[in-house]
């Protein structure tokens, strides 16, 4: 498995899952918070990726 995006999504999923379980007690809130975290991870990574695109490194 070498897909950067897939590994990013997998990492975001696990971290969001653990954070949601630790921060909220109600299952509905856990799903909502976990979903928001997961979406935040993915969107932030994509936005930062595009912002860094012009920089030659």
């Amino acid at each position, binding site marked *: *498995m*070498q897909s950067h995006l897939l*590994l990013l999504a*997998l*990492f975001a999923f*696990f*971290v969001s899952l*653990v954070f949601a*379980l*630790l921060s909220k007690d109600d299952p509905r809130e856990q799903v909502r918070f976990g979903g928001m975290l997961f979406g935040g991870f993915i969107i932030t990574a994509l936005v930062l990726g595009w912002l860094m695109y012009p920089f030659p490194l």
Partner: protein
Amino acid sequence: MPATTVEQTQSSSLVLLCLASWAIPGFGHLWLGRRAKGLILMVALMLMFVIGLGLRGQLVPLRAIAGVFDLSEPLAGLMCIADLGIGALYFVAGALGYGAGDVRAVTYEYGNTFLIVAGLLNFLVVIDAYDIAMGRK
């Protein structure tokens, strides 16, 4: 039973709980009766660790911790402490010959990230189990 003895028993069982929670991710929550949460944490953290090994990440050896104190390799030492966070799995994987790391692999850095974050998340899980045991949650 005198008050000091009760306190000593409570504090020793708290230490045992934290050690068990560290050694086996999610076990502290299972012990405290939070079965669903404990099982999900256990599966998620173990999967993260296994994926990290599968991506050819490196488990930094224990001797690297010295690098934190003599400042020769502080980052490797900190990485070792983070890796240790996953508990018994660190030692089991090392004993079975996993976690040598392959710096030539494309996924080496991804593997390291999974291993480090799995360990750090388990530290948070231990703190959460401690908070539950103390009646704060």
